């Protein structure tokens, strides 16, 4: 005689995966990135442009006038033999640009001038709307 009673083995509970080690690892990674990262807000000013960028653009009209700005070792720009304070440079360039819209500016910096001085001159020229600016330097003869 067979009985209708079947003994079933109770199902084993599924294995529990602990989330705690994962949280630990993630927290360690988070703290690592927060501590070791240095967040710098940096911009750039192009010093040399790609060849194709200039070649594909529309042919530029020749500048009608060229203005040479010498940059002294003290960081002061010198235009036509006269020292121009940096704060007056933008206004001066705007006035010159109004006279000659295709004005080209050449900057001849002294080797003793600081990088900040050159960047400031380039900055003021850009703010004045000068589109043609070149930095030139004198090479020593070999």
């Amino acid at each position, binding site marked *: 005689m067979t009985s209708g009673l079947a003994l079933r083995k109770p199902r084993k509970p599924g294995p529990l995966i602990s989330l705690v080690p994962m949280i630990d690892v*993630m927290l360690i990674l988070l703290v690592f990135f927060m501590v070791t990262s240095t967040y710098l807000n940096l*911009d750039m*000013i192009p*010093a*040399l442009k790609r060849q194709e960028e200039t070649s594909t653009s529309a042919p530029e009209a020749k500048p009608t006038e060229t203005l040479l700005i010498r940059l002294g070792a003290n960081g002061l720009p010198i235009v036509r033999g006269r020292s121009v304070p940096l704060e007056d440079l933008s206004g001066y360039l705007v006035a010159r640009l109004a006279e000659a819209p295709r004005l080209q500016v050449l900057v001849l910096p002294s080797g003793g001038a*600081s990088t*900040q001085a050159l960047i400031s001159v380039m*900055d003021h020229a850009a703010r004045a709307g000068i589109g043609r600016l070149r930095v030139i330097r004198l090479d020593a003869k070999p």
Partner: protein
Amino acid sequence: MKLTRPARNTQSETIIALIDVVFFLLVFFMLIGRMDATAPFDVDPPVAVSGQDMPAGGETLSVSRAGEVALNGVAIGTDAIAESLAAALSRDPMLRLRINAHRDADLRHVLPLIGLTETLGIRDVVLVVTPSRDSAP
């Protein structure tokens, strides 16, 4: 008859929300951070108002206040710069070079590097600046 208060079900606190927040922060820091080798000396870039957004990629040439040079965070002698840059250019003809010069570095240390890059044929050279909302100094 004494009524006993039923024992409160001790619910396990959900830690899913915590994991979500931590994971979100982790991904945030990993995404917005750009790994870049820092120079072995202090470099404080010049301040400019008219700077443009810094493009990603390329090589970084750092110049210290005293004129020391480092390529991608490794100090390099002036003689070896041309060789290293030429090798980088041969690997990537569209090489972009960032010149990260200290704001007080003399131009006699910086301008020859720009001249050298031009001679080597690198056509995409940018000067690293610190953006400023105020007027430039």
